[in-house]
Every structure is written in C-alpha cells, then in structure tokens.
C-alpha cells in the first residue's frame, strides 16, 4: 500500500448526522483492523491524557466526514501535528458520488472510498508539505473576539486585520496582504459553493473587485481593502469554497496581493476593534429589524 498502517494514529470525526460521518468511522475502523491506532474524538476531548501515549506513537491521520471538519478543528485546538488529512465528502466528490443524507453508509460508497484510500493517503502527505510552507508566512494562529446575537455567534480577530464596510478583510504581512470575507459574510451567505478568483498579475484598485464568491443563497464580490497586484490565489478555495464557512479568516483566504500603497490606504479602513464595534451594531440592528 505504500503507507505504514501500523504507524498511523487515526482521529475520525465520527459524526452521526450524515452518511459522511458514518463513513469516516467505517474508514477508521478499517484502518485499525490493519494495525492503526484509534482516537475517539469525543473521549479525547474529555480525557486527552488517555491518548497521550498513542498520539506519540505514530503519525496522526485526521478523517473528517463532512466539510465542517470537526476532527480537524479538534486536532488544531489541541495543538496536534496532523501528518495526513482526509475528508470523506471531498473524496466522494472526487469520485462523482453524491453523499446521502441518510446516515447509513451505502456499501458501494464504502468500497469506493477504500479503493481510493491508498492514493489519497500518499497524495495528502505531499499537499501537507506545501501547506506548511504557506503557513510559515501567514502563521496559523489568530485570536478571536466574539459576540452573540440571537443564536448566532460572530467572530472578529483581535489584531492584524483591516476591514472595509463591505465586510472584507486584509491580513498584512510585510508588503503582502491576504484578502477574504468576514465571518459575518459567511454566516449571512450560507454555504459557499463557488469561488471565481482574479487572474494572477491583475492590478486591483482599492475597493475594486478581487474575485467573487457564490453561495447557496447569493453571489457576492470580494471588495479589496487595498490596491495591489495579485500574487497568488487560494487554489484550495477553488476546489473547496466551503473553507470560507469553515475558517473565514485563515484557510478561507481568497487572494494574495502585493500592496501598492499600504500606509495611505489603511486610513480608509477599520482595524479589528473598530470593525468589531461596527459589526456588532450592524448585526444587532438587523436582528431588531427582523425580530422586533
């Protein structure tokens, strides 16, 4: 198979609501029959010490069921080093199989996944290497400030981001900035289904369009907080637009710009504290208008 199963420690999402969660569980059980060790996501959350030895023993494979990525979130929160990552919903998509709502896995779907598993394990390893390089520049940890309106929780980074009134953000590192849309946008727009990126090398004006997103509810332009030249686009977002929903401020970035005039343009933007107050007021107003 090319992958040492006896050195894998598997952390599956084990979700119950959809077929993808049940398939994540079936895949992990299959791997344990071949020698991998298993980490129960729920028990691990409650008693992490129980798995300390197992996690030190081998490489961690995270298997998410649906695109919410609970197992990945759990691993990140606990600071675990993820060696490989699989997402059942993505694997089904790749094979042109439509996952079903019924949480009972179809035998055919499980067999198809098992046939793809060896290649996916090797492929994911290479992808992770590339991702690690990007993460060095735009480091992966961002502290958030939250507020709740009704049953909705909104997150805004504490520092390091600039926002415009279109709820788009820029995260600046040196003369580069990554752009994306805020948590408020992803919650209002619902599930993202399409990302149309700008061309590499294109010159974008401040408040000009830097690509567009389409969700199950609406289509929206990404309004660039800064001007500059497009240096890179997030190819993972093209394949997985739901990253905006999953992680709007980090993995959900859309475009990387080489900045043209940072110091004067930032005067027209809000910093994190200003955006937090602005957004809170806006959301509370919308809520009052809707629910009285």
């Amino acid at each position, binding site marked *: 198979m090319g992958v040492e199963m006896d050195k894998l420690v598997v952390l599956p999402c084990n979700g119950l609501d959809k077929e993808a969660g049940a398939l994540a569980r079936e895949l992990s059980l299959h791997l344990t029959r071949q020698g991998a060790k*298993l980490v129960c996501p*729920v028990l691990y959350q*409650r008693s992490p010490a129980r798995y300390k030895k197992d996690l030190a023993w081998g490489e961690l494979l995270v298997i998410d069921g649906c695109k919410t990525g609970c197992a990945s979130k759990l691993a990140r929160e606990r600071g675990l080093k993820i060696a490989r990552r699989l997402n059942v919903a993505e694997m089904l998509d790749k094979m042109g199989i439509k996952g079903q709502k019924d949480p009972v896995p179809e035998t055919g779907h499980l067999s198809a996944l098992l046939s793809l598993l060896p290649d996916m394990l090797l492929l994911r390893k290479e992808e992770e290497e590339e991702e690690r390089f990007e993460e060095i520049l735009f480091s992966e940890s961002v502290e958030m400030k939250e507020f709740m309106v009704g049953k909705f929780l909104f997150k805004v980074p504490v520092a390091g981001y600039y926002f415009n009134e279109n709820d788009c953000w820029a995260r600046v590192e040196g003369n580069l900035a990554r752009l994306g849309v805020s948590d408020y946008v992803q919650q209002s727009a619902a599930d993202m289904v399409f990302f149309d990126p700008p061309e590499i090398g294109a010159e974008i004006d401040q408040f000009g369009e830097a690509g567009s997103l389409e969700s199950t509810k609406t289509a929206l332009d990404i309004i660039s907080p800064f001007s500059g030249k497009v240096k890179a686009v997030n190819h993972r977002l093209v394949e997985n637009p739901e990253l905006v929903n999953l992680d709007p401020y980090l993995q959900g970035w859309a475009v990387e710009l080489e900045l043209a005039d940072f110091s004067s343009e930032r005067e027209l933007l809000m910093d994190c504290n200003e955006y937090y107050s602005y957004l809170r007021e806006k959301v509370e107003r919308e809520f009052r208008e809707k629910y009285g």
Partner: protein
Amino acid sequence: MTMRTKPKFVGVLSCSGEEEPEGTIARNAVRLVMEKYRPGITVSLCLPLYLAGDSGEREFAKLAPVIAVDGCEKACAKLSTEKYSGKVSGAIDIRALLREWGVDDHLSRSRPGELEWELTERVAQEIVKKIDSLIQEGELATKPEKEEAN
C-alpha cells in the same frame, strides 16, 4: 415578563461510539428512534460537532430537552451536554442496561450481527420510553407520530 414556548423537538445525543460495541449500539439505536419510532419530533445532535463548539447545536440543547445515550459509564454524551447546555432530561447507559438484561456475550463494534441488532432495538425502545414520558409530562408541544409497522 419572559414568555417561554414549549419546544417541539427532543434532542437525542449519542456517544460517539468509537471504541466499544456499546457505542455502535448507541449510534444505531438513536437512528432507529429518529427514522422509525419517533420521526418528526426527534432531532439527533452530532456530538463531535457539538463539542467542536457549534453554537446552533449547543443552543438547541439549551432550549429543547435532550436525552443522552451513552455506550458506557464514561458517559461522554451526558457529561458533555451538562457541561455546555445544562442538565439532560434523560440518560441511558447501555452497558448498565446490558448488565441488567444479563447480556455478557462478546459483541462486535464494527460488524453488528443478529444479537447486536436485537439489543439495538431494545435500547431504541428505552429511548422511546423516555421521549414519551417527556410528552406525557407536557415538556413538548407535540404528540408522537404514529409508529411505523415493524
């Protein structure tokens, strides 16, 4: 004055069932209740999603009665619900039930056979009893739908 309307649904939160056969029974029993015995009023809560901090799942568990179905005495589902959303309205410990029923057979966690499915049905009925008693006590603004014929 605060007005509180009665919830229309009962949440059922199963343990993740990764390590033990009782966990597999818990998952499948919850599904049976949701799809076959009390459809329409039973909502399953996804425990990994709930623990990952999903505000919708946690809010739901605060507003609606929740029955925790645990495979063993570790009671991950029950304790997690109580940590984030308050007291559960009912709890089931499958290992304790199996002891009560005198079952000490070796059970499979990944390939449920006839015995495992029989026990799953019995556990599902225990969940149904708890749901029905919530309805009897007037905790839900609804009545159970007609059961499907077996």
